[in-house]
């Protein structure tokens, strides 16, 4: 087990997540892509703690913050989805382009 292997997995998760977040049309599926990206961040934080700075707690803090980011992202994502769906039956990102310049 080396730092590089774990980080490569994290990079793959980030790559797959980005692909999903950019290619999916449904808002919920976009959020699942974002969650995968943060999953990669979690893993990278764990690897950084174990292989680089185990004496410092900072990498663990990063993981905790990443978990909170996921929770916040999901709550706000679903709240916005419900709000926009209630207002005009929209559940796809392509139909919510009002702010597209």
């Amino acid at each position, binding site marked *: 087990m080396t730092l590089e292997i774990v980080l490569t997995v994290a990079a*793959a998760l980030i790559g797959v997540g980005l692909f999903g977040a950019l*290619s999916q049309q449904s808002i919920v599926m976009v959020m699942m892509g974002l969650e995968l990206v943060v999953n990669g961040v979690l893993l990278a934080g764990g690897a950084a703690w174990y292989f*680089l700075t185990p004496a410092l707690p900072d990498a*663990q803090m990063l993981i905790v913050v990443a978990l*909170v980011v996921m929770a916040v992202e999901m709550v706000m994502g679903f709240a916005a989805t419900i709000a926009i769906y209630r207002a005009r039956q929209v559940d796809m990102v392509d139909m919510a382009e009002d702010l597209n310049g």
Partner: protein
Amino acid sequence: MLTDVAVVTLGVLAVAAGAAVFVVDSMARATFALLASFLAAAGMLLALDLVYVAVVTALMMTIEMVVMAVFMIMFMMNPAGLMPMTMVHNVRGSVVVGAGVFAVLTTGIWTIDWPERDGRRPADATRQLGETIMGGHMLVMLVVGIALFATIISGTVLATHRGRYDRFGPELDGERPDDPVPGGLPR
């Protein structure tokens, strides 16, 4: 050696399950593929001696994914995937971005001259985290707490379409709130 095999297997599983999210037709399967990806990542964190963080990841992500499943079923046109359809846009661009980011990161990961391990691992990683949350990094926790509180309020405000005037009447003089679900407490 055994740990190496386990970590690589879990890593492959995490990425494969993550990719499956965007491949399978059924929304339930997509959600639980994402959960499998999280659980595999939690298993890797377990191998990295981060027991608390790993278990909390599993705990939070399970509940989050089940709630996610409810929304997936609610908002997708084809929840069970019985009539396969694709709802994607700009696939080529997305593949380029995803693969590009992966390539750049991997190149960096394998070419950077990583520093040596700095310091020794503590006997108890959970205690290390707990002491820092209540000590040196308390400000982070305070900010996180306020952010979560703000999230709860703004999430509720966005998601509900009923306010106190709907519940207690225009003069706010209703004795009992007029709620669609009665609830369990005597009022």
